[in-house]
């Protein structure tokens, strides 16, 4: 009985923790009202589960070669067939999800704080700080992200770690721009001015008063960003500049399956469909989050 009173909007929470719980529950309710968002959540959740339990889901070793069984069509034994070295494509896909998650997580962890820091400082301090930071951001934005990532990988050398660095280097500017725009609208808000008058330092104002207000839109942006990070990583892998064989990275799998594409369509179709599904899921999730967290847009 008690729970039903709390779910109604008129209920007054007794403590801060309860208030937080209440607002979280309302947000979750609104998030899951949209069936498209639910689909996105389901795919992302299953991606996490698959990555977590990869060794238990698959019966074949993703790296184990068996030339006698090379290039077999999909069958009950090999759900998505086998590749040119007789490796099970399904197992490789499942283990590849770990690489995708690794890339997404690392890039997000780098890009979020960097974008937030650059954007909020530019917006809050204004003047030459703003000029300098935004000029640098403009330079990075003046390239399509894949081309810039290609240039960085070319300089650093191919490899999974370098691909992550290259993607992160290209992905922070939009976050910084967003954070700056939001900070500009907050900088003269009454509560910020009040904090200034109380003698709070700039660091404290930025960390405690401004950054929390930026979080929701930055999270939305980061989620949508994940979709394009997956596509860029797959593109780098496809061009042979991302994860190197024999790692089961989805883009690299498409690249190596390309030679056998006409006869063995599953080598290309399966990893590509996986990339599309995950990217789509993050787009749907980002759309849904935006509707909940950022009601101003649209």
């Amino acid at each position: 009985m008690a729970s039903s009173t709390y779910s109604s909007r008129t209920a007054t929470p007794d403590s801060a923790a309860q208030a937080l719980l209440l607002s979280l529950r309302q947000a979750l309710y609104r998030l899951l009202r949209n069936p498209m968002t639910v689909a996105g959540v389901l795919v992302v959740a299953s991606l996490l589960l698959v990555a977590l339990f990869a060794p238990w889901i698959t019966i074949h070793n993703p790296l184990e070669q068996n030339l006698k069984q090379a290039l077999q069509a999909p069958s009950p034994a090999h759900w998505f067939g086998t590749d040119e070295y007789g490796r099970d494509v399904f197992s490789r896909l499942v283990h590849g999800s770990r690489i995708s998650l690794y890339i997404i997580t690392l890039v997000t962890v780098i890009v979020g704080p960097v974008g937030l820091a650059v954007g909020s400082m530019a917006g809050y301090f204004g003047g030459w700080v703003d000029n300098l930071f935004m000029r640098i951001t403009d330079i990075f934005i003046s390239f399509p992200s894949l081309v810039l990532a290609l240039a960085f990988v070319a300089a650093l050398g191919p490899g999974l770690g370098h691909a992550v660095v290259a993607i992160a280097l290209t992905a922070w500017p939009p976050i910084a721009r967003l954070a700056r725009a939001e900070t500009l609208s907050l900088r003269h808000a009454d509560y910020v001015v009040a904090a200034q008058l109380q003698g709070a330092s700039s660091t404290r104002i930025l960390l405690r008063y401004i950054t929390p207000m930026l979080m929701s839109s930055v999270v939305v942006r980061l989620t949508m960003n994940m979709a394009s990070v997956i596509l860029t990583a797959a593109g780098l892998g496809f061009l042979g500049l991302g994860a190197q064989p024999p790692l089961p990275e989805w883009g690299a799998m498409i690249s190596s399956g390309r030679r056998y594409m006409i006869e063995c369509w599953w080598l290309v179709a399966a990893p590509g469909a996986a990339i599309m599904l995950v990217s789509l899921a993050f787009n749907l999730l980002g759309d849904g989050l935006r509707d909940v967290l950022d009601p101003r847009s649209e």
Partner: protein
Amino acid sequence: MIRPGLRAAGQRAASVVLTLLGLLLLTFVIGRVMPLDPVLSIVGPDADKSTYDQVFRQLGLDRPMTVQFAYYLRDLLHGDLGKALLTGHEVVDDLVRVLPATIELATMAILLGTCVGIPLGVYAATRRGQLADHAVRVISLFGYSTPVFWFGMMGLLVFYAWLGWAGGAGRVDLAFDGVVPTRTGLLLVDSAIAGDWEVFRSALKFLILPACILGLHSMAYISRMTRSFMLAQLSQEYITTARVKGLSERGVVWHHAFRNILVQLLTIVALAYGGLLEGAVLIETVFAWPGFGQYLTSSLLLGDMNAVMGCVLVVGVIFITLNLLSDALYHVLDPRTRP
């Protein structure tokens, strides 16, 4: 009246020049931090110390970084991007040779993307919240989420290998290769000038599939933006007035609302065109399209930094130009933005 306009233009020009300089600095730095030794790639691993030092000095590598950057700028002003290892030609000549193929592909793609994307967006906006709106949203979401190189390969598999409708890899049937003299580098235009319609048909057959696939992404972007622009217009009071006057729905949508989003659309299309360059890098690799993207990737795999940096520079300049162009168009076409 003119003063503030001039001043804004001056500020804009200064910021473009600064961005351009920063872009050059970035490509310069990327070119310098690479682990490959440029001297070794010229003299080879067996050269003795004195030859190595001589080339080292010839390349100006003994100078301070600032001087090296100044030399880099000087060479650029002379249109000198260095020699490409792959072809042995000047990078500038190579770029002039490969860019038309990419421009032909990207232009066809943006035409397809615009012609499909705009009507879809308008249609979705007029049926907001209905089935058609959701369908358009799903289509555009797929356009956003599909890896373009994978879609290209699936397209090749279905329309070339299985159905045989489209041409395969390359720009034109091998039998027609080099038949028409190169004037613009755009094969469709060249063959039309030469009046060789057989070549024209073959080129079109090879162009249509990669262009459709490349255009999908811009279609998704354009339809999404068109929808939100149209929704903003359709909720305005002048639309209600037009409806109250008894104007037909078609008249309201196309003659009133759509006319007012034309300027916004134009800027969006210009930006989408720049975005196509990114897809072109991947799609050209899939379709063996002898353009800029393929040149970039094959240079990358060889570690040919002169060519790579030349390409990156060209992309940056094209991007900045398109941004500038879309800004300028906005000011010229929309009187409300004038000071």
